[in-house]
């Protein structure tokens, strides 16, 4: 440990350069991951924020919630049986403000439930992003398929669907806009295992998210971007630590020759790797969290503590593997061979 520290102190530039590379690569990974999570959240926050439970849509909908129609009798029975259950529908649409400016929204309506906003007829509750577009509480909005007007009752934070802000409307108003009588979906929160309901097909939260075509395709691309980045960054980490140690094979040869234990050499490699990685990761975590504050408004960015920790642990493990791999190579060579290799 002392030797490791003394080397870092003496060769500051070398270690600062190495640390900067680790910082930049991890910062890039955190930012891309934050943007990807942000996009994912922007696409389906409405569904993702719901508690774990079971979604039901009609069996003949071919797993497409837009085509689903829940039979009214079945809905009534289930809502009676399950206290927290709710039926709801989502449709893309638009509203016009007083200046006749059109705003894309995802209309959402539901039966009485704590999980969705309760709105009266002629009222609308909007995602806060529309407030940033100039809409205020008390404003009047219109829709060309709706005979009346919507009065803005309030705003809610982070409620988006298919990248559009959510507009909670009353069931009766929704029925008028979309000329339908049935709800699309039934949701029973807290239900770990699906129950068999005649004519309905069940989905867990994850299965339901994947059944949303736009979400599924987008998520696959985003996940691929993030995982490719993680794998490539991880490999870079491992290669850097491997190269750093293999380059010093002559030094390790001298230390081995004078009788330094191989375990001490491993401790030296690991502690240097850990020191650089922890500082570089700490810096990139702080900066990526700081980025949330300076990111342009409306830019989807979400970097949770969980994701940050997961990525950090992956990087530390990979860095550790890289250092260990070079350590094993150094362990194998005889001191003289190591000294001679270092002289080349």
């Amino acid at each position, binding site marked *: 440990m002392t*030797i490791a520290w*003394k*080397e870092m*102190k*003496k*060769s500051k530039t070398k270690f600062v350069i190495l640390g900067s590379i680790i910082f930049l690569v991890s910062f890039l990974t955190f930012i891309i991951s934050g943007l990807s999570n942000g996009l994912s959240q922007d696409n389906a926050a409405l569904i993702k924020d719901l508690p774990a439970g079971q979604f039901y849509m009609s069996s003949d909908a071919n797993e497409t919630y837009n085509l689903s129609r829940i039979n009214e009798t079945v809905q009534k029975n289930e809502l009676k049986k399950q206290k927290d259950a709710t039926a709801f529908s989502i449709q893309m649409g638009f509203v016009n403000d007083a200046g006749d400016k059109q705003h894309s929204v995802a209309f959402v309506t539901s039966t009485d439930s704590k999980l969705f906003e309760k709105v009266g007829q002629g009222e609308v509750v909007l995602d806060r992003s529309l407030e940033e577009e100039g809409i205020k509480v008390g404003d009047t909005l219109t829709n060309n398929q709706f005979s009346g007007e919507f009065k803005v009752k309030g705003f809610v934070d982070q409620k988006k669907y298919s990248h559009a802000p959510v507009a909670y409307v009353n069931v009766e108003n929704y029925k008028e806009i979309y000329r339908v009588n049935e709800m699309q979906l039934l949701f029973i929160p807290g239900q770990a295992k699906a129950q068999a309901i005649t004519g309905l097909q069940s989905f867990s939260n994850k299965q339901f998210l994947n059944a949303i075509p736009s979400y599924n395709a987008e998520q696959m691309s985003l996940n691929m971007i993030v995982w490719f980045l993680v794998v490539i960054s991880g490999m870079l980490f491992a290669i850097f630590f491997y190269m750093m140690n293999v380059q010093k094979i002559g*030094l390790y040869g*001298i*230390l*081995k*020759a*004078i*009788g*330094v*234990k*191989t375990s001490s050499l491993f401790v030296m490699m690991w502690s240097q790797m850990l020191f650089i990685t922890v500082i570089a990761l700490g810096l990139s975590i702080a900066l990526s969290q700081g980025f949330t504050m300076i990111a342009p408004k409306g830019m989807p960015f979400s970097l949770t503590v969980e994701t940050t920790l997961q990525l950090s642990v992956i990087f530390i493990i990979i860095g550790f593997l890289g250092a260990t791999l070079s350590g094993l190579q150094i362990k194998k060579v*005889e*001191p*003289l*061979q190591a*000294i001679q290799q270092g002289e080349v």
Partner: protein
Amino acid sequence: MTIFTIDEVKKTFTNGEVEEQVLKGVNLALQEGEVTALVGASGSGKSTILTIAAGLQRATEGDILFEGKSLTKMSQEQIRKIRASEFGFVFQSAHLVPFLTVEEQLLLMLNVSESKMKKREQKEEVEKILKLVEMNHRKDAYPASLSGGEKQRVAIARAIIHKPKMLFADEPTASLDSKRSKDVMTLIRDLTKTLNITTLMVTHDEEMLPYADHIITMRDGLIV
């Protein structure tokens, strides 16, 4: 008294399909407190036998006995322990640790040899040895700022600080001018005698031979 014996040691290097026997059965006995010089033409195997004797690489055949114990039968860890506490090395180039000061190089060696000395005693010992090699005034210097002769003096100090029983020196004056070479050899000889260290030294410089008690000549992997 014989402290170190090299018995029928052979070493073969394999390079692809080509095998080259560098040592063809070397026998040698080293007496306690004496300096033995190995001389011979380049490629005669003198450096190879020195590094095998010092436990820096393994022999293909034969045995090495240190105080009656066979090095060839020992595990890597046992050999490391002996290298750390009983052996000292001086290489052709000093091979100092670049990020340690002169004082730290010697303290590291004391730690590696698991010296029972307290920190203060270790510092005193370092000072004593540095005085002996006339390097006390450069104890805070890093290797990069030392001259070739100074580096070699520090390497010698590092090789003897833990009071080894054996000192192995591979052309310790190769990188030095004539005056510095004589200084270093005088130092090695004096320390050997003062501390009763047995020294095996490889040299190709005939001017260094008067400093040795015994001179052994090698040719084509054999002692002649």
